[in-house]
C-alpha cells in the first residue's frame, strides 16, 4: 500500500523534518542532529524500497494530489532515479551520522536552522531526482540550492563571500534553465518530461527547442561545475564549514549530473552523431578538459579541502565524459562513477573534517606522522579512498575507470583513454604527496606516543565508507548488472 506513494514519501520525510526542527531544538540541545540523522535513515529506507520496487516491478509513476499528468505534477521512479535516490540518501545519512556523533560544533541554538537547511537541501535533492516535471525540477533545484548557499555560507566571512559568489553563479544557472524551459514550452506546450519527449519525438528538435535545450544545458553545467563553468566550486567548498562541505561535495553536483543524464537521454531526442548539434561531443571534450584541468590544479594546492575541491572538478569531468561518449559502457561508467565518487569524496572530506575537528589543520605542508598517530583509523580510510581515487584495483574507483575506458574504446576514441590514464597518474601525484607526509617523515619526537587503533563512533562513518569502496569494487558487476543495466538507454 505504501509502495505506490514511495516517491513522494522520501521528499515529504525531509520536508516534515525541516518543519519539526525548531520543536526538536527546543526539546533538547542534541535533538536536531538526531532528528536529521533519523529522517535521513528513514529516507534511505524508503529509497531502498523504491529501488527494490523498480528493480522488481519496473518503473512507476505517482500523480501528486491525484491530478493526472500532464496537468498535475508527476513523480517518476525508474531505475535511474531510484539509483540516484539511494546514492544521495546513503551518503548523506552516513555523513549525518558522523555529524551527530563526531562533530558537536553545530549543537545549540544555531543547530536548529543549520539542520533545517540540511533537511530542505536533501528534500530538494530527492525532489529533483524524483520529479518528472521540468518546472517542478526547477523549484526543487532552487530549494536545494538556497539551502546549500546557507549551509556553505554558515562559517567565516570568507565562507559567506564564497557562498555569495556561488549564489550569484548558481542563480544565473537556474535562470538559464528557466529561460530554456520557456523555449521548450513555446515549442511543445508542455512541461511534463514524458509529454515533452513524446512531442519532440514527433516533431523533432527544431531551432526553438535546440536554443532552449542549450540554455538548459548551460544552466545545468553551471550547477554541476563542468569545466569552463566551475569557478565557484573550489572557493565554496574550501571556505565552508567542514560538515557542510562533507555533506554537499559528494552529492551536490551529482544531482545536476542526474538532471543532465535524464534530459539528454530520456527527454530530448538528441542524436550523438548529429554534427549540426554535437552536444555529446562538446560534453565529452569539456569533461576531458575538466579531468586534466582539475587534476593539474589540485597538485600545487596547500589546502587539503581546496585540493579535494579541484579533484571534484576532475571527477565531474569523468562523469561528463562518460555521458558524452554515448556508448553503453560510457553510460555505465558515468553512473557507476557517480556512486563511487560520492562515497570516495564523502570519505575524503570527512577525513579533512576530522583533521579540522582535532585541531591539526588541513594545510598539507603542515601534516606530519603525528597526524596518523592521532587518527590511525581515519588515516587508513583516507588512504583507501585515495587509492580508489587514483583507480587501483580492486577498489571501486578502478572499475568506473575500467568502464569509462571500455566506453572510450567503444566510441573508437583513443584520445579519451589517454586522458583517463594520465589523470590517474596526476591523482597519484597529489594523493601520494599527502600519504608521504602522513606516513613517512621524521618520527623522532612523537615515537613514544602510543598509537591507539580503535573503532569509535567518531571514525565509524569513515570506516563504513572506506569498506563500502572495497565492496563496491569487488561486487561492481552485481551493481552494474542488476541496478545500472536496466537504465541504460538503447544507443
Amino acid at each position, binding site marked *: 500500500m505504501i509502495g505506490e506513494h514511495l516517491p513522494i514519501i522520501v521528499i515529504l520525510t525531509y520536508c516534515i523534518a525541516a518543519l519539526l526542527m525548531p520543536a526538536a531544538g527546543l526539546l533538547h540541545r542534541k535533538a536536531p542532529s538526531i532528528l536529521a540523522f533519523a529522517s535521513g535513515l528513514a529516507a534511505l529506507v524508503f529509497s531502498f524500497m523504491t529501488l527494490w520496487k523498480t528493480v522488481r516491478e519496473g518503473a512507476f509513476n505517482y500523480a501528486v494530489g491525484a491530478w493526472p499528468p500532464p496537468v498535475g505534477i508527476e513523480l517518476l521512479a525508474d531505475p535511474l532515479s531510484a539509483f540516484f535516490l539511494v546514492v544521495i540518501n546513503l551518503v548523506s545519512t552516513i555523513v549525518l551520522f558522523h555529524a551527530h556523533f563526531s562533530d558537536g560544533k553545530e549543537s545549540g541554538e544555531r543547530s536548529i536552522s543549520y539542520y533545517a537547511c540540511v533537511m530542505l537541501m536533501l528534500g530538494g535533492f530527492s525532489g529533483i531526482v524524483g520529479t518528472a516535471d521540468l518546472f517542478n525540477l526547477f523549484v526543487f533545484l532552487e530549494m536545494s540550492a*538556497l539551502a546549500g548557499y546557507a549551509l556553505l*555560507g554558515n562559517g567565516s*566571512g570568507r565562507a559567506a563571500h564564497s557562498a*555569495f559568489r556561488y549564489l*550569484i553563479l548558481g*542563480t*544565473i544557472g537556474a535562470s538559464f534553465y528557466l529561460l530554456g524551459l520557456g523555449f521548450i514550452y513555446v515549442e511543445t506546450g508542455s512541461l511534463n518530461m514524458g509529454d515533452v519527449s513524446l512531442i519532440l519525438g514527433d516533431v523533432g528538435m527544431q531551432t526553438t527547442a535546440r536554443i532552449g535545450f542549450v540554455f538548459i544545458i548551460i544552466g545545468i553545467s553551471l550547477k554541476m561545475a563542468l569545466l569552463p563553468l566551475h569557478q565557484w566550486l573550489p572557493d565554496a567548498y574550501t571556505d565552508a564549514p567542514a560538515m557542510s562541505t562533507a555533506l554537499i561535495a559528494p552529492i551536490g553536483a551529482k544531482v545536476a549530473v542526474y538532471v543532465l543524464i535524464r534530459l539528454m537521454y530520456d527527454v530530448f531526442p538528441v542524436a550523438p552523431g548529429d554534427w549540426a548539434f554535437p552536444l555529446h561531443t562538446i560534453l565529452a571534450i569539456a569533461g576531458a578538459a575538466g579531468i586534466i584541468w582539475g587534476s593539474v590544479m589540485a597538485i600545487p594546492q596547500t589546502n587539503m579541502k581546496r585540493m579535494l575541491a579541484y579533484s571534484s572538478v576532475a571527477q565531474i569531468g569523468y562523469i561528463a565524459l562518460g555521458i558524452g561518449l554515448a556508448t553503453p559502457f560510457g553510460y555505465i561508467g558515468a553512473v557507476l562513477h557517480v556512486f563511487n565518487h560520492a562515497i570516495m569524496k564523502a570519505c575524503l572530506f570527512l577525513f579533512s573534517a576530522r583533521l579540522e575537528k582535532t585541531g591539526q589543520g588541513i594545510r598539507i605542508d603542515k601534516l606530519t606522522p603525528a597526524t596518523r598517530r592521532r587518527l590511525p583509523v581515519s588515516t587508513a580510510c583516507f588512504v583507501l579512498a585515495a587509492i580508489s581515487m587514483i583507480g587501483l584495483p580492486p577498489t571501486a574507483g578502478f572499475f568506473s575507470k575500467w568502464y569509462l575506458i571500455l566506453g572510450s574504446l567503444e566510441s573508437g576514441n583513443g584520445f579519451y583513454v589517454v586522458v583517463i590514464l594520465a589523470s590517474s597518474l596526476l591523482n597519484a601525484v597529489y594523493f601520494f604527496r599527502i600519504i608521504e607526509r602522513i606516513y613517512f617523515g621524521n618520527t623522532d619526537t612523537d615515537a613514544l606516543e602510543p598509537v591507539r587503533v580503535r573503532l569509535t563512533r567518531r571514525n565509524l562513518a569513515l570506516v563504513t565508507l572506506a569498506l563500502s569502496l572495497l565492496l563496491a569494487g569487488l561486487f561492481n558487476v552485481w551493481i552494474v548488472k542488476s541496478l545500472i543495466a536496466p537504465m541504460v538507454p538503447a544507443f
Partner: protein
Amino acid sequence: MIEIIESYYAYWVCFLLLTVGLYGILFKQNLLKKVIGLTIFQASVILFFIIIAFKDGGTVPIYNEAFSTKEPLGYINPLPHALMLTAIVVGVATVGVALALLMRIHKAFGTIDESTLWKELRK
C-alpha cells in the same frame, strides 16, 4: 529589419533587460549592485514567460461571460503566469539569502566592495 524589431519588440526588451542584468552582475563592484543585477536578470526571464503567454486580443484568464468555457482560446495562457508566481517566490527567497550573506560579509570585513574584499581575502 524594422519589421523584425517591431513584431518582436517585447522579446527585444526582454533581451535588453537580460543584458542589463548580466552587466550588473559581472561588472559592478558593489555586491549589493550585483544582487540588483541578479534581480533584473531574473525579472527578464519572468517577463519572457509572460510574453510567451500573451495572445493578441486575449483576455485575462478569469471566467468571462463573453467566452465562458467554450472558447478557451479567448483567454491568454494562464499556466506561465502560475509558474512565474512560483518563480517570483523563488527569486525573493534568493534575494533574501543573498542579503543575509551580504550582512555577514559586511560584519566580517566591513565592506561589500568586491575589489576591497579581494584585498582583505588575500591577507
